[in-house]
């Protein structure tokens, strides 16, 4: 038997999680999380504060011991995976004030050096510092001390440190918190470049739904300690009832109709009125609508006393 050929390997999940539980004292933060991440995917983990996104990521990074469940990341249990595994995984930290007196260039040179012995033909490690600095747009600030960098510059350095070892799998926990719109767009381009050019698999958390929509091949929504939704932004929107709004004008009067079958409704509408229908507009439920609805459903299921009369109509 020969070794697995590449197309076969591509289908193997990079991350597999089964029945993951995490309990702090009496509080079950994660209650049976199941998820897969396939090679080359960008998966975004969404969820309200306290839903356990950071806990999940930290378990996958090997920084936290789960209460129960099986976790495989790049074919190993992260807690016991060892240093060669570390070389294949990138982690983007939210930095604070570490290495304040270092310069970006010195820090990247230094941290990159650890990866030199894990270099392969396929993935030469580390990424040369100059290349990295220009990739994240820090060439001009490369010799400034870190404490003089702006918040956005520091976050970009965090990303650079996360990818200095040319990781096969990259974890980012709220990478764009505190970014201005331009920095955010540049960051999105950077993630696309990583996945396209390097085939890097990316798992990131965010609160920004438009960011999730732009970046994600697949979105996972974590609520009430479980994955409550799993799919592309479109697929998630389709899971929600009455997910489209049809608007039109007829004889100067505006109409709005919510439906699960927008195409069928519009066909009937046009069949019935051969003329007079104008400004026809179909608006799909946004990811935000979907998200709010799903999270609300799960939170109200947990707190049965809370009335569910509030809905997302008429947004």
């Amino acid at each position: 038997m020969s070794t697995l050929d590449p197309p076969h390997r591509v289908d193997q999940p990079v991350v597999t999680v089964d029945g993951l539980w995490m309990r702090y004292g009496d509080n079950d933060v994660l209650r049976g999380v199941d998820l897969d991440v396939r090679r080359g995917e960008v998966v975004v983990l969404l969820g309200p504060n306290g839903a356990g996104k950071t806990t999940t990521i930290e378990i996958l990074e090997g920084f936290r011991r789960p209460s129960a469940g099986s976790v495989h990341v790049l074919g190993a249990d992260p807690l016991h995976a060892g240093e060669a595994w570390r070389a294949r995984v990138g982690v983007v930290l939210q930095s604070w004030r570490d290495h304040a007196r270092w310069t970006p260039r010195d820090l990247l040179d230094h941290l990159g050096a650890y990866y030199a012995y894990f270099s392969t033909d396929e993935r030469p490690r580390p990424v040369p510092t100059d290349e990295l600095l220009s990739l994240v747009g820090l060439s001009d600030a490369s010799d400034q001390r870190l404490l003089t960098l702006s918040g956005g510059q520091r976050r970009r350095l965090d990303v650079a440190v996360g990818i200095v070892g040319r990781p096969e799998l990259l974890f980012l926990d709220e990478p764009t918190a505190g970014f201005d719109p331009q920095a955010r767009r540049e960051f999105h381009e950077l993630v696309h470049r990583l996945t396209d050019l390097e085939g890097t698999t990316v798992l990131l958390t965010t609160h920004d739904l438009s960011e999730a929509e732009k970046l994600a091949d697949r979105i996972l929504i974590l609520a009430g300690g479980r994955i409550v939704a799993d799919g592309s932004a479109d697929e998630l929107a389709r899971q929600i009832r009455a997910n489209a709004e049809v608007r039109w004008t007829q004889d100067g009067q505006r109409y709005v109709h919510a439906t699960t079958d927008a195409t069928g409704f519009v066909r009937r509408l046009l069949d019935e009125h051969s003329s007079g229908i104008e400004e026809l507009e179909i608006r799909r439920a946004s990811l935000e609508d979907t998200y709010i609805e799903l999270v609300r459903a799960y939170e109200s299921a947990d707190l049965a006393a809370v009335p569910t009369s509030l809905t997302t109509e008429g947004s």
Partner: protein
Amino acid sequence: MDLRLHAVTIGMRRGWHEFVIGLRSSQDQTFYVFMGLGVLALLWFNRDEVLEGTTLTVPQVVLPSLIAGVLMFSIVIGPAYALALEREDGTLLRCRIAPYGLHGYLTGVATLTVVSLVPLFVIMLGGSAILFDGAVPTDPRRWALIVPVLLLGILANLSLGFTIGSLVPRIQQVTTWGMLPVIGLAWISGIFGEIERLWGWVQVLAQAFPLYWLGHLMRYAFLPEAAVVGELYGSWRIGWGITVLVAWSVAGSALAALVVRRMARRQSGAAVAEARDQAANMYVR
């Protein structure tokens, strides 16, 4: 090359880099000068006193003891502060994410600590050589003894700093659990002279720690035979001194390896974020 060895060389470069950064900063310069000049001033004010029963002056007798004291202070407090601070601000975590990064980080702290002794010793020894006749030995055979004793003293004390830095819950407690005990130990170990005046049980306690023995060996290496009258039991106990320092080196390393690994395992982004939030709250108040 062994990968751990590779990481250790990276860590040594890291420590050197931090030392060079420090040399350029006024904060570190102030520390070196303050500490070095403090020692010289202490000796200067006692320059005319003589050790009873000998012709040796106080600067001659106390300089080797103070070198031992400064060595222990720097070697214990340096890593204790570094670990307590850098696990909160994310430095440790940042390094740990790289393969064998924890090895490199710890090597870096150790390297910085040891290299930082050099400016201190240059000021103390250089100043003493100029100010006090016969305080600094010129015989190379004495230096052949002094240097190994210093290295042994470093080994015996280094793990103590790593242990304290790993165990203290917050950086503020390094003062309580590191600084005060070290100063107390220096006092009961006769670093400032006069151990014979202390009670018997305190003398015994002092001899359980490496500092007394480091001071003892340093005085042996620095001073002529006649200085033995100032020692406990009126004798040089070289075998005992080496044994205690080696024992502390071995046992201390084992203990430090245990607590450092335990401490490092608990580091995560969330832990660092928590420390950051607490610090932010402190500023607000």
